[in-house]
């Protein structure tokens, strides 16, 4: 009950933001929503399966460059098509990558994902004829639901139609992920997180489940990356850099990986705090590094972990 109430209030607030908040804050919500989608996926792997990826920026990069290629090179402007293509591209790349990575756990899994991420980063950087190198590529303004909103001033476009479009994508992403983690599949992932050897004796084929979770998380990262590209207007290789992957894990930990909504809280706090700190001093990394260190040492459960958690009462 209480959770439903908090959710309803949060949703109402997010819907109302473009009407009540200054335009600057409205625009900050866009990366929040895009990262929200990414982190929902990442946490399926981190919080639910127990695998920490240090390479998920790879899939953000894939999604974002898909948007750039489609709107630029291929003149495909429909956002629906872009998001769908980003999802498919991310899934197609993730399938073989996941097949390699899920054979390992812990530090080796983290290193292998990092290596794959850096392969893509280097590719983006070095094959500049195709990708624009470190300059990156522009992303043209996509059509929303088949409507070309090219005449609208950019700010108005982003703070209005694009804002609500992102919100709908985020809500759909939340609903689908909620379904996934509350399915028999989601339960099996949790057994693997807690005790893979025991899961196997129950007949749960651990690599298959890890693979599936990895591919789903990559699809989420791809869609989130495509969503992120439009407000930025330009994509560049740093999207796929390993520190970006590290920041994703940071955001998840910040909100709390043990809870479903933790990563969303993490993304929100990270983006607003980063913006605030950067407006005061240019050294946001120093402050954020200290915050991360404090989190790891004192509050590994993240912000949501700070509240005494009531046991979720399930229907008997």
């Amino acid at each position: 009950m209480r959770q439903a109430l908090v959710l309803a209030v949060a949703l109402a607030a997010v819907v109302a933001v473009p009407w009540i908040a200054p335009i600057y804050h409205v625009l900050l919500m866009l990366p929040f929503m895009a990262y929200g989608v990414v982190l929902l996926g990442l946490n399926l792997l981190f919080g639910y399966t127990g695998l920490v990826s240090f390479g998920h920026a790879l899939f953000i990069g894939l999604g974002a460059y898909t948007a750039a290629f489609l709107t630029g090179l291929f003149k495909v402007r429909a956002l629906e098509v872009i998001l769908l293509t980003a999802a498919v591209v991310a899934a197609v790349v993730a399938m073989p990558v996941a097949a390699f990575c899920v054979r390992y756990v812990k530090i080796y899994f983290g290193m292998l994902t990092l290596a794959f991420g850096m392969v893509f980063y280097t590719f983006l950087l070095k094959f500049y004829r195709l990708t624009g190198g470190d300059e990156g590529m522009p992303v043209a303004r996509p059509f929303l639901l088949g409507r070309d909103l090219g005449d609208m001033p950019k700010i108005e476009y982003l703070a209005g139609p694009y804002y609500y479009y992102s919100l709908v994508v985020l809500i759909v992403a939340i609903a689908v992920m909620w379904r996934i983690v509350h399915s028999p599949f989601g339960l099996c992932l949790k057994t693997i997180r807690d005790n893979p050897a025991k899961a196997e004796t129950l007949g749960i084929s651990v690599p298959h489940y890890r693979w599936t979770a990895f591919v789903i998380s990559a699809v989420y990262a791809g869609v989130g990356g495509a969503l992120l590209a439009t407000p930025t207007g330009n994509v560049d290789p740093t999207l796929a850099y390993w520190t970006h992957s590290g920041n994703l894990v940071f955001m998840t930990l910040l909100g709390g990986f043990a809870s479903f909504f933790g990563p969303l809280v993490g993304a929100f706090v990270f983006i607003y705090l980063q913006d605030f700190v950067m407006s005061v001093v240019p050294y946001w990394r120093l402050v954020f590094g200290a915050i991360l260190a404090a989190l790891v040492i004192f509050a590994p459960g993240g912000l949501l972990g700070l509240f005494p958690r009531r046991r979720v009462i399930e229907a008997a």
Partner: protein
Amino acid sequence: MILQAENVTKYYGEFRALHDVTLGVSAGEFVSIIGPNGAGKSTLLNLLTGLARPSSGTVRFKDRDITGIGPVKLAKLGMARSFQLVQIFPDLTVRETLQAAVAARLRRGRRIFASLRGDRDIRDGAEEVAALFGLDAKRRALARELPQGDKKLLDVASAFALRPEIILLDEPTSGVSTADKTRIMEILVRAAKTIGLQAIIQVEHDMDIVFGFSDRIVALHQGAVLADATPREVQADQRLVDMVVGRRRGASA
């Protein structure tokens, strides 16, 4: 004959852990494997569950060679196993643990978009096993918060939730109090009848448990079968008892 080991020998390097062991288990049997430390009990259990590969000889389950088959396929074939050290999912509740096992048995673990809560088969299956093992009052407790005896029960219960045809237990009562031991064994035997389990094989040190519950005892000594007899016959042979459990009867190792 549901499970059959024929002339299995197992070397670890130069060391011969098992020598020419032949052992068959039929439907309806409760077999205890006993022997002093290093007699090869765990090795035999590992061979019987296809976890280790015999240096020579074969292990067949339902007329199928299960050498090196791996735990996942073994569970699907209908053989369950528990380990000496209690294996639980610390952050799952009792109910979730049993639901996971039932979902795996029903081959529904790969249903990504189905509702777990709406799946009556999984829910009922888990409730049934929880009731059988007296865990229904604790079904919302996290596994890591259970007392040791209940952890052990949950571990075995999740294996039973697979509704196997045969179950192999490595010291099902190790590390729990004497009072809990008998309780666990009684629950186990009753549950076995209810779910229609065909055979139980256990490795056990506690001779009261062994004599009190098994139909048949296989005594191992230095990697070979020393005796394969009924509890009555074993009990009558004082020299044999001394050899496999040491001087004092009933002392747990």
